[in-house]
């Protein structure tokens, strides 16, 4: 059975997913961080905030429709251009639109001097026992390693029966585009890559334990803990899902290429399965988070006097990039969407990031077919 999906169809599916993600984006920000702009708690119901979120969503839909037209036009010219240009053009346009609409809130905030009478506070826990770091759930990583070990054993057993020439590259349709002489690197390259990816994700999961728990001054301690636990759980689940899905995907594709080296690989259904799995976990986590945080939001609105977080907009560029040299944190909670943002103001973080990128580039360069 073959799966033939045109570049236009795959672009359409990609665009639908991207539109859904960007439509949900304004809802995923905290009430006091609309579109990534820090505002005092007594301004969460300002008309301009609601209208800006609505306008942004309308813009996302319009850009989505234009992108569908672009994909249709490009598919007549080039398959590869359709797959690459369409999502990139969509994301760039939406980010630009985000910046434009976000500026409406920034202007209103500055002109109205919203923080003038705000009671800003910074809150932290005092004792060491209150700052216990959350645990990393190890079973998805152990399962990933198990899949990798089993696949490696299968490869080792069948190594002798594999042909002398093996495929090393496939195009987007799954057809073989490059071959190389049989060697340990060629046979186990894919599964080795997934082992490195799993280890990297496990390392990242441990690093995430060190993300400081920032307490909103209006939160009771239990609410602060709930918020921090939820955010930690979401991040950990997504990392674990990527690790396990990557291991399964690499295992399935490696075994398929060993079984029938010259046959096209089922890349399209594999990619769809990968994103479906990742999407299902993401949607589940987002729904759980929104439901839990609804309770916290209700408390915001019912509170007699608001205490606000300090205005730290000067450290956030476009509400997306964080650069604060005074903050020792490597990661902080994102203002837009869910998850964490890198603190580009932390020298240790920047060096680690540079080493990580260098390692990936070096690995890709060395493993590229000559």
């Amino acid at each position, binding site marked *: 059975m073959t799966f033939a999906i045109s570049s236009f169809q795959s672009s359409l599916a990609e665009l639908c997913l991207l539109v859904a993600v960007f439509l949900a984006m304004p809802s995923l920000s905290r009430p006091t961080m609309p579109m990534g702009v820090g505002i005092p708690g007594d301004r969460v119901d300002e008309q301009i905030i609601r209208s800006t979120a609505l306008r942004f969503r309308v813009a996302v839909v319009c850009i989505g429709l234009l992108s569908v037209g672009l994909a249709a036009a490009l598919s007549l010219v080039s398959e590869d251009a359709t797959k690459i240009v369409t999502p990139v053009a969509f994301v760039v346009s939406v980010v630009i639109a985000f910046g434009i609409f976000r500026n409406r809130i920034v202007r209103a905030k500055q002109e109205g001097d919203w923080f003038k009478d705000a009671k800003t506070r910074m*809150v932290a826990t005092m*004792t*060491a026992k209150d*700052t216990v770091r959350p645990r990393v759930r190890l079973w998805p990583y152990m399962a990933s390693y198990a899949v990798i070990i089993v696949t490696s054993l299968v490869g080792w057993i069948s190594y002798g029966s594999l042909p002398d020439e093996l495929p090393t590259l496939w195009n987007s349709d799954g057809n073989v585009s490059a071959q190389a002489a049989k060697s340990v690197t060629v046979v186990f390259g894919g599964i080795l890559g997934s082992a490195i990816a799993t280890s990297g994700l496990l390392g990242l999961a441990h690093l995430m334990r060190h993300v400081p728990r920032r307490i909103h001054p209006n939160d009771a301690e239990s609410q602060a803990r709930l918020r921090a636990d939820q955010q930690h759980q979401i991040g950990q689940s997504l990392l674990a899902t990527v690790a396990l899905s990557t291991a399964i995907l690499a295992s399935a594709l490696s075994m398929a290429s060993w079984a029938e080296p010259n046959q096209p690989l089922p890349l399209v259904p594999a990619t769809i399965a990968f994103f479906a799995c990742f999407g299902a976990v993401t949607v589940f986590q987002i729904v759980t988070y929104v439901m839990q945080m609804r309770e916290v939001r209700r408390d915001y609105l019912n509170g007699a006097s608001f205490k606000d977080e300090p205005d730290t907009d000067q450290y956030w560029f476009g509400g997306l990039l964080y650069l604060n040299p005074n903050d020792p944190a490597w990661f902080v909670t994102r203002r837009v969407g869910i998850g964490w943002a890198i603190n580009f103001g932390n020298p240790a973080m920047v060096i680690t990031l540079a080493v990580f990128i260098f390692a990936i580039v070096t690995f890709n360069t060395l493993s590229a077919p000559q």
Partner: protein
Amino acid sequence: MIEIDPRSEVPIYQQIRDRIVEAIARGDLRPGDSLASVRQLAGQFGINSATVVKAYDSLRQEGLVRTNHKSGSVIGDTSEIETPESFVNGWEDRVRTLISEALAQGISDVSVMDRISDIVTHIVHAQYANIRAHADGAL
């Protein structure tokens, strides 16, 4: 929890020091309790670690916090040490200045006495509540 005002004229390190002193007085922090590490506290506030170091150093110099190589910064036990005369004199001077400021601003002496009495009562009540809670927990 420590709550500080980033827009206050009082420096942040001083506010951290003051909140910890208040927590010790109320009995929220007891001798032997480990304070959050410098890095943890700076990370939670999103401030430079040097600010927290300055606050902890100040508490250490006052004898309220001591460094334990195993547990980090822990609350010291001042109950068995006689309060130095120099501290009492300095403290008395500060109280005199504070009361004088209130009177100079036009707050009546009765009102000043009432407020001081309220503050002391509030701290002592919290202290007793913490002692009771600790005793119940120990039983």
